[in-house]
Structure formats: structure tokens, C-alpha cells
């Protein structure tokens, strides 16, 4: 890390002195550099950076989409603290994120270790089966699972009835107690293949000599797993955890399609609440773009924290 940085600094100062002497080769490179980067950068300014700044500004205003936004300072944020739905959305977002991240990390590691143990050919098949749910769109998987969870005739309830567990039949998505677990299942179903594959790649990069040495010292499989596999995968785990957090904080599609945040805000997350505030038409009232933007800002802050967490975990693991 440090050497790469030094090298970079040396190279850059060399480049800088080359500019000073105005070598024609260097100059054409500099011009080409800016020309090549310009198109992407213009798009970035117009459709990423500006929207970020504009959201931050809107979050300090009260605006229904007509006329000029009215500046209200941090009112939207204090309103958030007193809005029970907002509090609920924040709690649900954090809980869903924590639970799915934990399950995905654990199941991903376990399945990767198992896939790594079995025969190569079979492993490819297993990996494909586990991965396909991840390439299907969120809308498709949400619609599909909504049908499976259907209270009257859904497959889940029919299966429970068929195996004599009819008493467990349930309106899964319409009950406060089961709606979140139901969403966790769908999210894990879609995300496991990716987690498993990253762990799988991590496992393959562990030096097999470590295991041999440990076996010579009399370590059993569990001890080897705890003292070699888990520590060697620390960077991978950091990555998976932070990606899990990132995906959790921006959760939207699955919940929007399956429950729309219901029943009675039972599965409301930041994304669905901000969407209904900004674009919802059910209440018939004006869109609350200022208030909704405050949720955008909170989402962005959470996502930034997830990325910083990963940088921090990676750096710690490097030492």
C-alpha cells in the first residue's frame, strides 16, 4: 500500500516536471485525458453531483412541487423525529439491514465452504442454482414470492396444508409479525448466490499449506475452520458485510412490489416512505418533496457510512 503510494507520488511529480518542460507528447496526452474524461464527467455533474446537492437543499425546504421552495431550516429533520411512520421506517430499515446482512454473511460462508468441499462438476451446478435467483429482477422475484405467500391459495399455505401443518397457514404479508421475516426470505433468496460466490473465491485463495500444517498439529476440522478459514476471510467478510449494509439501506423494489410498505406501515422502509411522500397519489394531497428529500439525505448518509465501514474493516485487516 505504502510503496504503491510512494510510487504514485514519484510518478506524478515526474509527470509534473514534464508538463513544465512542455514536451509535446505530454501535452497531447493531457489534452486527450481531459477530452476522454469530459463526456462522463459532464453526465456526472448533471445527473449525480447536482442531484445530490439539490436534494440536500430541498431537504431544508417545504415544497409541494409548485411555486418556489420555501426555506424552513432543519424543520423536516425535526419533523422526522416526531413522525411515528418515519421512526418506524428508520427502525425497519435498520432491522431488515442488520438481519439480512447477518443471515447472508453466515449462510454465504457456510454454503461456500460446502460447495468448496464437493466434487468440482457438481460444484458448478450448485453454484449456478444458487446464483440464478440473483440475476432475476427484483420485480420478478417480488411478484413471484407474493404469489407464493398468497393467503388464500398461495403455494406456501397449500404446502403447509398438504403436510398436515394447516394450523400454521397464515396471511404472511398481511400480518405485522410475519411481513418482515417474509421480506428477509426473499432478500436472502436473491442475494445468497453473490455472497456465496465471493466467499468461494476467497476460500480458493487460502494457502492449502496452512491446513496441512494445522492438521499435523492435530487441529480438527472445526478448529481449522475457526483458526484458519475465518481469519483468512476477514477482508472478504468486511466486503460482504458492507455490501449487505449498502443494499439494506437502499432497499426498495422488493418491498414496494410485495407490500408497498404495508400492512399499515408494518414494512415501511426509508425508500418506500420517501417514494410515497414524493410520488404517492393515494392521499390526494400535494407531494411533499422537501420532507421526502430529508429521507434521501438520511439514506445517503447511511450508505456513505457503509462504505466507510468497509474501508475501515479492510484497513484493519491489512495490519
Amino acid at each position, binding site marked *: 500500500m505504502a510503496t504503491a503510494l510512494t510510487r504514485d507520488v514519484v510518478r506524478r511529480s515526474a509527470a509534473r516536471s514534464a508538463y513544465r518542460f512542455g514536451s509535446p507528447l505530454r501535452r497531447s496526452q493531457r489534452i486527450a485525458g*481531459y477530452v476522454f474524461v469530459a463526456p462522463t464527467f459532464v453526465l456526472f455533474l448533471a*445527473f449525480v453531483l447536482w442531484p445530490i446537492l439539490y436534494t440536500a437543499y430541498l431537504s431544508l425546504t417545504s415544497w409541494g412541487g409548485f411555486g418556489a421552495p420555501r426555506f424552513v431550516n432543519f424543520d423536516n429533520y425535526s419533523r422526522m423525529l416526531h413522525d411515528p411512520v418515519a421512526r418506524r421506517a428508520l427502525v425497519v430499515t435498520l432491522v431488515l439491514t442488520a438481519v439480512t446482512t447477518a443471515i447472508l454473511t453466515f449462510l454465504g460462508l457456510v454454503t461456500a465452504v460446502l460447495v468448496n468441499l*464437493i466434487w468440482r462438476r457438481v460444484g458448478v451446478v450448485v453454484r449456478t442454482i444458487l446464483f440464478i435467483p440473483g440475476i432475476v*429482477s427484483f420485480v420478478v422475484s417480488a411478484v413471484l414470492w407474493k404469489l407464493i405467500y398468497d393467503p388464500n391459495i398461495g403455494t406456501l399455505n397449500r404446502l403447509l396444508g398438504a403436510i398436515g401443518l394447516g394450523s400454521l397457514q397464515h396471511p404472511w404479508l398481511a400480518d405485522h409479525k410475519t411481513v418482515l421475516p417474509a421480506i428477509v426470505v426473499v432478500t436472502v433468496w436473491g442475494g445468497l448466490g453473490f455472497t456465496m460466490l465471493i466467499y468461494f473465491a476467497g476460500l480458493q485463495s487460502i494457502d492449502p499449506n496452512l491446513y496441512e500444517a494445522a492438521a499435523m498439529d492435530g487441529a480438527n476440522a472445526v478448529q481449522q475452520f475457526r483458526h484458519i478459514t475465518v481469519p483468512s476471510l476477514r477482508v472478504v467478510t468486511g466486503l460482504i458485510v458492507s455490501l449487505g449494509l449498502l443494499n439494506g439501506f437502499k432497499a426498495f423494489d422488493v418491498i414496494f412490489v410485495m407490500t408497498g410498505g404495508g400492512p399499515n406501515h408494518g414494512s415501511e422502509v426509508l425508500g418506500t416512505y420517501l417514494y410515497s411522500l414524493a410520488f404517492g397519489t393515494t392521499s390526494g394531497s400535494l407531494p411533499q418533496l422537501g420532507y421526502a428529500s430529508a429521507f434521501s439525505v438520511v439514506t445517503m448518509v447511511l450508505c456513505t457510512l457503509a462504505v466507510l465501514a468497509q474501508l475501515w474493516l479492510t484497513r484493519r485487516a491489512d495490519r
Partner: protein
Amino acid sequence: MKKAFATFVLAPFCLLMAFPLVWMLLTSLREQNTIFNGPVIPRKITGAAYREAWTSIQFPLHFWNSVWITSVTVIGVLVFATLSGYAFAKLDFPFRNTLFVLLLTTLMMPSTALIIPLYLELKSFGLLDTQAGLLVLYISGSAPFAMFLMRAFFQTLPDELIEAARVDGGSELTIFRRVILPLTRPGIATVVIFQFLSTWNEFLIANTVLRNTDSLPLQPVLFTLMGQYSTNWPALTAGLTLSVVPVVIVYVRMQRQFVAGMMLGAVKN
């Protein structure tokens, strides 16, 4: 022994994971009147639901919308990403690293959080409810990540190659087109697959920006389908299946490249 144990644990788990998609396929092949009381595996297979999904929701129209929106996005992203990725990997210019880090901030900003200003922006440009507006958002939203992948690929190319071409007097654009691009086929393929899958599957922006039903791509149509066809499960699952087919074909055919790209993206960011 270990292998047998692992297989023993994985086999039922795989069945569980595969079940929803297999069920989708089986349901789509059923007759409407057997979905609620017939056996799990249909005794009689029929393509009637596909015919119904195909005609009643104007499937070909929306399928075509998805195809061309995805194609234009892929090409657009590729142009922006190869140019800037190459510049960041191989060309020396002032503020290179600052610009790069700035562009990287895009990668963590979710579209949910930016949807309000993006909506307002398209509205003020008169691009709301147009496919052109959707394309602009798709390309600008994805170009930075693709740029990041392409940069990693360009970095693997030797500097000497470019130096030699420069000494031979090629302009930077000629070097890029004639020398660099032909060597980056695998990188380009990775970006194509990635971009294809994510654009084909995108829902939030398409559902927000487009209101005119004729211009909708497949994902928002599947969403509205859910309301209209909530009782006609075979037609609904047939629609879902049809929308998934291209994705599965692309994935299965290009699995290796996709996995390689995913690793690169995941490990590097």
C-alpha cells in the same frame, strides 16, 4: 466422507432455492382452472397462458422497448466508460486522481435517494415521460461503475505498448481505437453483460419516469400486470418467465465473464 456430507446438506438446500423459479415455470404451463386444486406437477401441460400473456399485454411491444432501451444503454455506457476508463488508467493529466475519486462517489449513491431531483431535472428538460429521458438517466447512472471496471482492465495493459505507438506518431485517439480497444475485448464483454442485466432488470427509474404505457419496458409492465392479473396466475407467471428468459440465456452463456467482472467490481470497490 466430507464430500458426501457436504452434498447431503447442499442437495435439499438447492431444491429449496430452485423451487420458486421451477414453480413459476410449472404454473405458467398449467390450465387456469387447475392452479388451485390440481397436483403440484401439472398433469396436462398447455401453452395457453403464454399465448394469453403474449397478446393481451402487448408483450412484443414491451419486450421490444426493453431490448432497444437496454441496447442503447449498453452502447452508450460502453462509449463513455472505455474513453474515461482509459484516460484514468493510462493518461497522465493534472487532477486525474481528484476527478477519479469524485466520480467514485457515484457508486454508493442509491437511485432511491436521487429520484426526486432526477425527476425534477427531466421535467425541466422536457424529457419526462420519454424514453430519451430514461436513457440519459440509465447511461449517466451506470457509466461511472463501468468506467471503474474498464479502468481496472486497462491497467493490466503494458505501458510500453502505448509508448511505442506514441513514438510511431499515432494520435491519442488512434492509439485508443487501433491499439487499445482490440486488446480489451474481455473487459468490454464484462461491461456488456453487467450492463445488460442491470438495465434489463431496472424498475424504480423506469416506473417513475415513464407514464405513457406504450413506451414502458418490461419490468414496470410486470408490476402493473400483477394488479390486473392477480387471479390469472398462469398468464402472470408466463409473463414473468418470458421476461426472465433473455437474462438466463445471457447469464448461462457468459457465466465465466460475468463472475470475473463481479469479482473485479466487488473486490476493488
